[in-house]
């Protein structure tokens, strides 16, 4: 199972607590994980990546295994530790604003 940790506001929007566990078939990439996330929680569509372009929203980042993966290709495999469920993929809201 893939573990995804969402920021507070997206957890409340999706009405989940703690990490989200997802089944992902095929290669484990940003795109496949987010596709699985949005399929299970349709209310998250458009909140992490843009509806039309699929581009990551500006004030969100993707972290895993102490690395910033935000600028990687969405089709690049995520670290093995994420694919195996050992580590979560973190969706992080930028520290900005008031």
């Amino acid at each position, binding site marked *: 199972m893939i573990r995804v940790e969402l*920021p507070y506001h997206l957890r409340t*929007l999706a009405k989940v607590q703690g990490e989200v566990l997802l089944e992902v078939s095929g290669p484990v990439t940003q795109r496949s994980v987010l596709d699985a996330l949005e399929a299970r929680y349709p209310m998250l569509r458009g909140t992490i990546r843009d*509806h039309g372009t699929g581009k990551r929203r500006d*004030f*969100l980042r993707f972290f895993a295994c102490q690395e910033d993966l935000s600028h990687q290709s969405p089709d690049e495999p995520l670290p093995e530790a994420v694919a195996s469920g050992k580590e979560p993929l973190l969706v992080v809201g*930028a520290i*900005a604003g008031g």
Partner: protein
Amino acid sequence: MSKVRVLVGTRKGAFILSSDGKREQWEVSGPHFAGWEIYHMKGSPADPNRIYVSQSSGWFGQTMQRSSDGGKSWEAVGNKFAYDGVPGTHQWYDGTPHPWEFKRVWHLEPSLTDPETVYAGVEDAAIFRSTDGGQNWSELPGLRGHGSGPRWQPGAGGMCLHTIILDPSNPNRMYIAISAAGAFRTDDGGKNWKPINQGLRSQFIPDPTAEVGHCVHHVAMHPARPDVLFMQKHWDVMRSDNAGDLWTEVSGNLPTDFGFVIDVHAHEPETIYVVPIKSDSEHFVHDARLRVYRSRSGGNEWEPLTNGLPQSNCYVNVLRDAMAVDKLDKCGIYFGTTGGQVYASADAGDNWAPIVRDLPAVLSVEVQTLS
């Protein structure tokens, strides 16, 4: 016994204020969607338990919510607002062409007859419609496709479509307003639109009487007289007696005719309300006094209403969608401030009292009159 439900959108969540017909004791519910910007929330006239909410965030973009039980519970609905066809361009602040980009929903206008149908006014300016309770949204492209679209440009707050008025006597007629393009009308259910800005004068555009380019802040209509419109423009309070075909200024003796809100008494179509704001350089009330001005003659002659409102050291603003009226007798008037107060008058403006004083900055106020 009648009740009222005041729907308040703020910078950090939504609040629902409820009272009986006396409008003296209030129950406060919220924050709903805590931490999110609630640009607007509005109930369906056809089913008051159906409430639509525009919920947005600089981080997570636009989401939409609806309630089917009067705000007790909420359901996220569709948030995909895709412009019809090739979006094209409008003018950017520097006059260069800029692609249309969706940013947020400013205003929601539920159908007068069908709880599942609701219109959304968005930034960059366009009007969308859902006929399935907000699950799916389709643009009415005739507005943005009007020949003047490439000449529209944003105001300081963005190029927002912030006003949608449905004509209760003619389902094919709607009015909308855009900052800073102006007001438009459709007479065929949204297929075709025409600018209705004749008579407006705006010194901040090269041609002050141009067809488009006017920074209309808000428009109001009394449902019994749908051809009579009242407008708070960036500067100037205006009225039209022919469905927007021609406007005349009715600022009269206002201390300043800059402002955002305008509304009409529920039972007196010639009684209107504004809140003068000092200037477009200083977005707070004139003379540090919070005064609602009322005209009982449809404009020109205005009286200040101050009982219960702060008359010194007050520096709040009242934003364009932050005033509403109920349908009780006497008519209740409500408005919210950027300082987080929501004021109510249960006697058409003669006396005021705060319902709440310390909310986040208020973006919008709507009222439902419930039997």
